[in-house]
């Protein structure tokens, strides 16, 4: 679901692109964040807590907390809530703490 009308905000949606979440192709629009595109596709679990493995999702929405850290194109600890989508981007849920050596 995407908001199309809002009393004070305008949504200027960019061109449609394709992103991949855990291998599954999803429609997204340029200019929106990863979290927005995933939320619109009904994907609400973005990562898991380190100790108990509980699901974690969209929370602070401003890049401050660690709730929405995902792996993007092999890079760990990407904040889904403030990172814009890019055509062909491959996103996966992060399990445990990120590994900085992935993708290097």
């Amino acid at each position: 679901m995407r908001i199309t009308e809002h009393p004070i905000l305008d949504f200027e949606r960019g061109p449609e692109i394709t992103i991949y979440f855990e291998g599954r192709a999803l429609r997204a629009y340029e200019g929106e964040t990863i979290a927005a595109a995933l939320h619109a596709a009904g994907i609400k679990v973005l990562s898991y807590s380190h100790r108990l493995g509980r699901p974690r999702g969209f929370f602070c929405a401003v890049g401050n907390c660690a709730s929405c850290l995902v792996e993007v194109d092999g890079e760990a600890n990407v904040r889904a809530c403030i990172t814009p989508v890019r055509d062909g981007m491959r996103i996966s849920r992060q399990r445990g703490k990120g590994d900085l050596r992935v993708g290097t």
Partner: protein
Amino acid sequence: MADTASVVIIGGGIIGCSIAYNLAERGLRDVVLVERQFLAAGSTGRSGAGVRQQWGTEMNCRLARASIKIFEQLEEMLDYPRSIEFKQEGYLILAFTPAEARQFEANVRLQRSLGVPVTLMDARGAKEIVPHLVVDRVVAATFCPEDGHINPFLATDAYARAARRRGVDIRLWTEVTGILVNNGRVKGVHTNRGFIHCPVVVNAAGPYSQLVAAMAGVDIPVYSERHQILVTEPVQPMQGPMVISFHHGFYCQQTPHGSFIMGVGDPHEPKDFDVGHSWQFLEQVCARVRELLPGLLKLHLVRQWSGLYNITPDAQPILGGVPGLEGYWMAVGFSGHGFMLAPITGKIMAQLILGEQPEIDVSMLGLDRFERGELIREPSVV
């Protein structure tokens, strides 16, 4: 009812807690520890949490080695149910100039003579130990695998709990406002919560040691200086040892939790009691990371803070009493490495106070060394 104690220890950092434990462990009763805020609120809880034996003076090496040997079995000794998070994966210390490399050779000779298992290596050896380190300009490096990281809060808590179980009365939010001295003898301590009669007072006030000393009429040649520090988000383990460059005034270590702790020394830091912090510090750290450990540039910062070094002219602590002032003792001026020296300091101070032979002769760390001008300056400080 009169409030009395056998000994009042001023300061609830790890030094004060270690002294309290060691006094009580030796059977002394009615020990009171007073802390202005909460345990580890001063320099201990703000420290970089590193412990190392690679020092440049014999005394610092001996105190550090003895302390690490105690830290290695601290949980058992203090019957502490948690881990103090001792990550013993070494310190890698880098030299960037030939002069520094020569100093390191001398340090290693000294350290090895005192039993510290340290090795001197070239840039390639350093790269093997920390693969993501840029070693292009590294001239030499030293590595001691027994050095590492300990959680300062848990180590302090371990000492405090063990001290309490042995009868020590730890009073938080109790600030010392004066020390009563009469005819060259300590008589008691004034606090914001009343007066405590005591024949012995121990100054373990860390960055406020000069203020406490002045209350007893003692002038000590120390000043406090701000040092800033930061911590990042946690990631999977990727860096075993602490990496230090004295040349850059930079250190960086990954904690067992996975976060990185980093700091940069700055000669322009305020020399007072300011524990604020600055954005310029973040730029300085980023510049050093870009130069030495660029693989860490993608880490997100979680928090920055600062703490105070209590610095002496030779960067070695002042341990002992003061001639002509009976009942006044101090363990102060640790110059940025008090946390790691706390276990043996507590033991030695307790032995001195109780009139026993101290495990290590620390008479050369007395206050009178400054009058005699017998200073051996510690070269290996950040």
